[in-house]
């Protein structure tokens, strides 16, 4: 550890290539916290958006037409408007009409902070895409398979749980991976409302150290590592889930 610190310290002293993150403990922990925040945001949003996708694709099969229209409207709204504008709409727009609570210090404070709004906004954004993806997966399950399940006496729900959904999830794995990677990348916009994720922290560091190129490269590499590890993970998962004849 010490030698790495010395190396980067020398790099800065001799060549002016400044990576304070690697020789200054304070900056190191600050950047590490930024990475942790990004990862947290990503994991929470991925899980919640999958839930939104599941519930939404289930609601789309509702007998009550207005529910379907609502789901459709939700999907189209979130798919066809800029995520950053959505984030502002939530954080500044909805945040302005939310009731305020008094915190421990006796100061009125918004119920939801910027981090919570970022989670909500990103979840709804990715969830809209997930509904579509799940639905296309469900539609791609061969009719014959559905009929076979029904013929064997599976009820609508049971055939869903035991036959259709397990096949659908395998079919829509590529699309799902794509969308979730997109979500990981979109978490960067939380920067705009001051969530201290990687980009925001890097910005704080280069504002002090004037080392924009170094920090930018570090941020880029961080994101590439996060994205590529996620893709690796999904590859492993889909290989595990392979079913003969459904090897997408």
């Amino acid at each position, binding site marked *: 550890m010490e030698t790495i610190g010395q190396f980067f310290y020398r790099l800065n002293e001799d060549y002016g290539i400044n990576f304070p993150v690697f020789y200054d403990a304070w900056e190191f922990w600050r950047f590490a916290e930024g990475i942790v925040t990004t990862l947290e945001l990503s994991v929470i949003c991925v899980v919640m958006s999958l839930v939104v996708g599941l519930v939404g*694709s289930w609601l*789309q*099969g509702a*007998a009550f037409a207005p529910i*379907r229209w609502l789901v*459709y*409207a939700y999907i*189209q*709204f979130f*798919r*066809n*408007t*800029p*995520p*950053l*504008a*959505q984030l*502002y*709409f939530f954080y*500044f*727009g*909805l*945040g*302005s*009409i939310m009731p305020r609570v008094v915190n421990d210090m006796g100061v009125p404070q918004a119920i939801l902070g910027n981090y919570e709004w970022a989670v909500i906004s990103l979840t709804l954004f990715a969830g809209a895409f997930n509904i579509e993806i799940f*639905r296309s997966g*469900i*539609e791609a*399950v061969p*009719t014959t398979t*559905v*009929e076979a399940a*029904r013929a064997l006496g599976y009820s*609508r729900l049971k055939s869903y749980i035991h036959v*259709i959904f397990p096949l659908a999830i395998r079919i829509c794995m590529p699309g799902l991976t794509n969308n979730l*990677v997109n979500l990981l*990348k*979109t*978490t*960067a*916009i939380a*920067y*705009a409302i001051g969530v201290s994720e990687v*980009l925001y922290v890097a910005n704080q560091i280069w504002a002090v150290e004037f080392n*924009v*190129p170094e920090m*930018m490269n570090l*941020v*880029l590499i961080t*994101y*590439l590592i996060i*994205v*590529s590890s996620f893709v690796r993970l999904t590859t492993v998962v889909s290989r595990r889930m392979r079913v003969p004849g459904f090897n997408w």
Partner: protein
Amino acid sequence: MHNSSTTPKLGRGQPMPVVGAPPKERLFCRYTGLPFTRITLWHGCILLVTLLLMASGAAAATQTDELSVLGTLIKWTPLLFQGFLLNLLMSALAMGIGTAIGVFLGLAQISLMPPVRTSSWLLTQLLRNSPWLVTLFYVMYLIPFEFEVFGVLVIMPDWVKATFGLSLPVLANVSEIVRGGIQSIPETQWEASTSLAFSRKQTLWMIVIPQCLKRMLPPWMNLYAIVTMATVLGNIVGVSEALTLTRDILASEAKTDMLLPMYGYILVFFFLYIYPISRLTIYLERKWTVKG
């Protein structure tokens, strides 16, 4: 579909398809029982009404009459529209630059020379997997805003730099679309054309590419919609596009009850432009699906 009361039901009152019955266009989703609705811009209108209702609700909550909210929106519409035009200009330019470079990069990805193939693949992956905002920052911070060309000082406006920044991820995406499109053409086509004595270049330009142009158009249009939405990121780096203007207007109005309707309004702006494009994309995709 054949309608008789004797057939067993498949949930939600759908008759069992009869074996050998002529296939007809489905009115309902195969399993979810979801009707394939042909919904037009209705949703945009419903959205608008909902937002206005929300706005009036917010206005009522803050004891101002709702007309003032609506009036304020109408008052600022021309300015917002100007900002929106800048968004459109940026997206068109980024798309143009990205496509021009991306097509070459995509073709380089299927080159026969390993170094060319590998390096173009690497560049594509690098730009495709980094967040748009990060590439935008790269260009904004690391490219000088003025440089000399033949002794003339050229000053680059912010929005031009932002456009370049946005065209980086675009070219990577176009590169992937091109590669995927070309590789989606069956190997047999290549073999057949080789046996007919077409050279590799001829095969590519006269046989393969004409066939996959149709396949590549829908994803390309999708990408255009994404780029249009991404131009809003210009707000973060100080380009005065629609979202930035929205914030400026809100700052000048200094009324908290305008926040929600105003941001809703800008969302509607984008929705009305992008929704038709995405419908058209879906339509073309369905129309050109290769019946395998």
